């Protein structure tokens, strides 16, 4: 039966990794649009919040606190965003600049959208799309809270992005995915290979639509919080076969190279330039990030 913990752990072994559970460290990203890093650190220290810089994440900190940081004044004023360490990296790889036109395909709840605007210093344009109506509220709340002024958000399926009649310098496709067992303790019981294949088809469609509105020479960052190769390396192999693109190095100093041998199937060598986050090695959620250039 192609499901269950043993099935998935065996797959990971075949990919060369013996995974084990880890305790995810809570982390935040300072929103330097609203406050300087130094000022916020001092204020949180005054409240006995312990902070430790995440060495590979710009403005990212691990924290420990005896109370929830999600209700304090500094949070309400948008001075920081509670964001898992690996989830802070796709935007860092995308590296959006002020005055660019950037698309965030699957935006809610807005962690990466607000980070994109932060990188752009609130200049230029961010178009944020969210397909699900009930998730739009959290996106709006976080845009407001973080003081984002260069964004337009639409209730829209990214599969229909062509109807915007816009071309973008950069696109973030943080794709809907099957997730991973680190962030969902019931993951092994809920998932099976069929569901993962379905997720892969959705992701391929979103890759295709995203590339159709990306300018030539523009950058697409594809990310997924999944460890399953069907949603990661195999999607990249499919993309390289069907579109004029190349995969580039991410410059991240964390994560393993993307796997180029998936269950005996040899993939394009450039897929090794993607980053795969095995939780037991990175102490983060499972993650995959690819930086793609449209030719």
């Amino acid at each position, binding site marked *: 039966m192609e499901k269950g913990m043993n099935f998935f752990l065996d797959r990971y072994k075949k990919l060369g990794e013996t995974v084990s559970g880890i305790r995810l460290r809570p982390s935040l990203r300072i929103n330097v649009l609203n406050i300087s890093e130094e000022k916020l650190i001092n204020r949180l220290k005054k409240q006995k919040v312990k902070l430790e810089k995440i060495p590979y994440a710009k403005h990212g900190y691990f924290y420990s606190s005896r109370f929830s940081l999600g209700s304090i004044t500094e949070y*309400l004023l948008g001075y920081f965003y509670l964001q898992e360490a690996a989830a802070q990296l796709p935007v860092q790889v995308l590296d959006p600049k002020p005055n660019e036109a950037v698309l965030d395909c699957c935006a809610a709840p807005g962690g990466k959208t607000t980070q994109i605007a932060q990188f752009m210093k609130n200049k230029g*344009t961010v178009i944020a799309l969210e397909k699900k109506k009930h998730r*739009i509220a*959290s996106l709006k709340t976080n845009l*407001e809270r973080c003081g984002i002024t*260069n964004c337009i958000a*639409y209730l829209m399926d990214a599969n229909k992005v062509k109807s915007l009649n816009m071309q973008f310098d950069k696109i973030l496709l943080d794709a809907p995915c099957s997730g991973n067992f680190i962030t969902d303790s019931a993951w092994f019981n809920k998932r099976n290979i069929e569901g993962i294949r379905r997720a892969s088809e959705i992701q391929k469609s979103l890759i295709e639509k995203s590339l159709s509105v990306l300018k030539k020479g523009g950058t697409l960052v594809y990310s997924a919080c999944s460890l399953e190769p069907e949603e990661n390396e195999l999607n990249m192999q499919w993309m390289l076969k069907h579109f004029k693109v190349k995969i580039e190095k991410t410059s991240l100093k964390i994560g393993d190279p993307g796997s180029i041998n998936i269950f005996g199937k040899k993939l394009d060598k450039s897929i090794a330039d993607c980053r795969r986050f095995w939780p037991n090695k990175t102490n983060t959620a499972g993650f995959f990030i690819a930086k793609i250039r449209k030719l």
Partner: protein
Amino acid sequence: MISLIQKFTDKKIIDLSKMIKIDRDFYLVDDNLRNICKSIKKKAEYVGTYLGKKEKPSVFLLNLLAKNSKKKVWLNEKGAWLFICRRDVFAKSIVKSEDASDFVLIMNEYGECLGFGQVIDLSSKKVEIKRMYDVGDFLRREK
């Protein structure tokens, strides 16, 4: 929105020609975003700088009002915390005030505006300012 601003200042702090309303939300939109919105011809859910709802100013607008109004009171740390938890302001929490006669902006020890209230009894030793709106609304709205 205008009537809310006028509670605190007569100055024209908002360029009304750049203000738009989507459902019950007000936004300030620059020419770039306005042109994009026009070309896309689809209802935006959020655009530009959020100003808030009729009687619920955004953090951006609260800060703008605080810069342009003398109607302010400053609270101590405990009073400021209670205020963002929907509590009214007691006299003992007020460490400083300016022109506190009717509607007032509520400031914390860092000079950040946390919301606004209405002075209900200056002579009272108990409730001094009735809470009208505070930035904790963000959290309560999500629930």
